[in-house]
């Protein structure tokens, strides 16, 4: 039986592996980090049902136990060989694979690139990722009994200047989720969400929004934050335009959470070049077709799943991974 290599051991890679195992294959997962789970593993809870992320990860890990997993390993070369792909890993292993699945995911936007928001300049400016780590039980000296917290949507998303003009899809809902979580922890804190458009498109997301408004009293301010300053007592002064009242607005907060968006994963660009895969204008991998062939690349035998082709939510990623497993199965059966 031909080998199947899955590049990336995040939820996309793991779910695809799970399905391939069910179809009778033994896939090989190559994950560059030292543990499986990808970005989701560093998350605390997932919207809209506040499902603990660790539950998903541990379930997936258990179910893909029979697969071959290389963690802390990178694919350093890929080349086509008579209808198959020859891959070399940085631990010296080489694999001849009948099909390759790119589940290489995304990168979180580096919020310090938007210096006007003060990440890396002011102590109390944190990112969505920092907050999840803290919620998961991590230590963070920057957060201590805040009286007011601001959430800045679209940091590094929908922003030509940040090199990413696309919407990251998950940040609006994540901001609402984190706002609710903070409100649960600090009921007296005022919470301000600065948004351009609220994009709450998925199942139960709107309920989530209503929840935040009605039950938690989160303030939603329609205006993109332009500058952040620091007061003498170390609080943060946030400036935006309240576009609905048409007035410049400023507010002092103790923590400002930047909703860093999803950007393309540049670390696979060398591999992408070797495999001669097409790249889209947004830097993500280009599917053969954005409706019917989302999971197919421009090269036979190379498939995509998850956020490597664009921003996705966790359920979307899982669904794609399942579908990709089936596509690979069909390809190997008919090819």
């Amino acid at each position, binding site marked *: 039986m031909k080998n199947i290599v899955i590049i990336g051991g995040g939820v996309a890679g793991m779910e695809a592996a799970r399905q391939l195992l069910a179809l009778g294959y033994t896939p090989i997962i190559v994950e560059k980090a030292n543990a499986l789970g990808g970005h989701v593993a560093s998350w605390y809870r997932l919207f809209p049902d506040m499902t603990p992320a660790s539950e998903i990860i541990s379930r997936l890990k258990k179910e893909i136990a029979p697969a071959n997993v290389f963690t802390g390993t990178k694919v350093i070369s890929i080349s086509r060989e008579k209808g198959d792909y020859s891959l070399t890993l940085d631990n010296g292993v080489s694999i001849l694979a009948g099909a390759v699945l790119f589940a290489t995911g995304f990168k979180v936007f580096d919020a310090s*690139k938007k*210096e*006007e928001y*003060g990440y890396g*300049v*002011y102590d109390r400016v944190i990112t969505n990722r920092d907050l999840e780590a803290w919620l998961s039980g991590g230590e963070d000296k920057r957060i201590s009994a805040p009286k007011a917290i601001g959430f800045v949507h679209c940091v590094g998303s929908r922003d*030509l*200047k*940040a*090199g990413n003009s696309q919407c990251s899809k998950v940040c609006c809902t994540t901001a609402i989720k984190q706002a609710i979580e903070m409100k649960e922890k600090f009921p007296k804190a005022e919470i301000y969400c600065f948004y351009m458009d609220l994009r709450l498109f998925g199942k139960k997301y709107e309920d989530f929004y209503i929840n935040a408004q009605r039950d938690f009293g989160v303030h939603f301010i329609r205006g993109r934050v332009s*500058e*952040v*300053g*620091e007061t003498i007592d170390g609080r943060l002064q946030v400036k935006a335009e309240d576009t609905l009242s048409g007035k410049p607005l400023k507010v002092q907060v103790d923590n400002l959470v930047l909703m860093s968006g999803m950007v393309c994963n540049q670390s696979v660009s060398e591999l992408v070049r070797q495999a001669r895969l097409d790249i889209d204008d947004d830097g993500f991998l280009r599917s053969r077709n954005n409706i019917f062939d989302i999971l197919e690349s421009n090269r036979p035998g190379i498939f995509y799943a998850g956020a490597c082709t664009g921003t996705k939510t966790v359920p979307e990623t899982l669904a794609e991974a399942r579908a990709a497993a089936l596509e690979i199965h069909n390809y190997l059966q008919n090819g």
Partner: protein
Amino acid sequence: MIDRIPSGFNPFVIPFLVGMGFVFAYCIYALVKILLQLSFEDRKKFFLSLVNPKTAAKNIRDMFCDCLFHVKLWKRNPLLGYMHSSIAFGWFMLIVLGHIEVILFVPTRINLFYYPIFFNFFVAEADQTMKGSLLFFMMDFFLLVVLSGIALAMVKRVRSRLFGMRRTARPSLVNTIGLYALWAIFPLRLLAETFTAHISGGSFLTGPANWIFRQFLGNDLHYLPTWWAYSIVLGIFMCVLPFSRYMHIPAEMLLIPMRNAGLKIRNARKGLTRVQVFTCPNCGVCIDACPMSVSKENIKDCTVYLTRQIRRGNEKRIAEISDKCLLCGKCEALCQVGVQGPEIRIQQRAIRDYSIRQDFSDIAVNEVRKSHVVYFSGCMSQLVPSVGRSVESVLKKAGVEVEWMDRDGGLCCGRPMLTAGKTEEARSLVAKNTEMILSSGADTLVVSCPICYRMFVENYALPGVRVVHYSVYFDELVKAGRLHLTKSDLCYVYHDPCELGRGCGIYDEPRRLVGQSAAIAESDRCRKESICCGGSLGSLSLTFRQREKITRAALENLYASKADAIATACPLCKATLSRFSDRPVRDIAEIIDLQSR
């Protein structure tokens, strides 16, 4: 040496005389017109400078160095320098030696000013003298020098890269005619002098050539047509000169004294602007210099095309070219003749009509708290908060008490207004800021933004206040032992901000500061050749996408130094470069803050 033709005239000199007469008349007319266009003060300043022995000496020196020897070109590229100076100096010497010949041998003809040019036609060798042979030798020698220059010019047409130029300006029709006429002048002169060398005498070039030609040309019928041809191409060259780039030859002789007199560009088309437009030799050095030329679409927006369009009076293109420019000043810094591309462009912007105008006279300004040292961070610094914070922290470490006058926002310094051509509005902002700064009673104004700094230096009158860029101020603090720097393991490459480097001549202090707090590397194009980051407020019309290409080109230049990080001293440069940079971009203030006690 005797006069061969008793009348001292032959009709073939007519084309030359016509051309010469035309050029003289045109130049006198242009000179008078330009002098009249100057303001009274400028005219007075100009004439006074001519009689000032110091400036007069400088004028003469500059004319020799710039017009004849092209010293700046030699420094840029020796081959290019040789090409230009061989033609200019060689031709100059041919004219001078021609006059000496006339004075020595046929002094009665000195009033005929075609005589020195066509000397060899009108004289016959009587008996050889030592003087004659030396002069003949020198004439042939300088003719050879000019011819070598012309040969190089022909090579340059096809292979400009050999001369250190990637791109050259596309010649217009009239320039092409002038060019071919110029190329033809000296070979024809060689031929003409060769054919008559057995009569008038010749040297190592014309003598043997004459002997060779006479081996197969039986008679002397061909020599008169050759002298005609020589005179005709001279005539053509002179006639197209005022309309072609060759106008730079007479114009530069006016520009040099005007520059040395300290005149400034004050009008979109007249006076000094006109002289500079005429002086542009269309060499195209500004094309390679221009950061915008990374995109082919922008090549026609370089200064060489601006001067061309101003001469043509093509208003639409003048406006487009003027608005696109970043005003980074690199073309001016590298220009061989001193055309001030940015200033000319600002003047074009200043003649626009706006139906909505700004006025700041009625706005209430904040009182600035009394302090000896006042810090002005500028508008852009609010988008790059690390700069202001670091400056404040460093000053605190050095024990300098400072009042940050625009911590929570203030007024713009006025430079963006000024460079957009809105002079009146800029003046109004200057007045307000002046009021505020003076009210603080400060004796030192520390400025972190180079754009503001240049404005304060050039356009503000702040009696008793020393305006200083923080890099210079920090450097002084280090020297005075009030600030102690330790070296980090990082290696920085310093990016010269246009307004600080080319604009204000501050290159060394920032480097010294970085060098004392880390290792420092240099990029290929640095100091006055540094590439604009692309964020400049100078450009009005460049789009974000076009700017992105410039930024990436600037970054490539910096990456080539293999440094770990980029240092700069301008908030706008920092914000622009860090957008696309693959390595950290830090302001000098941040580096100093990290590395100081």
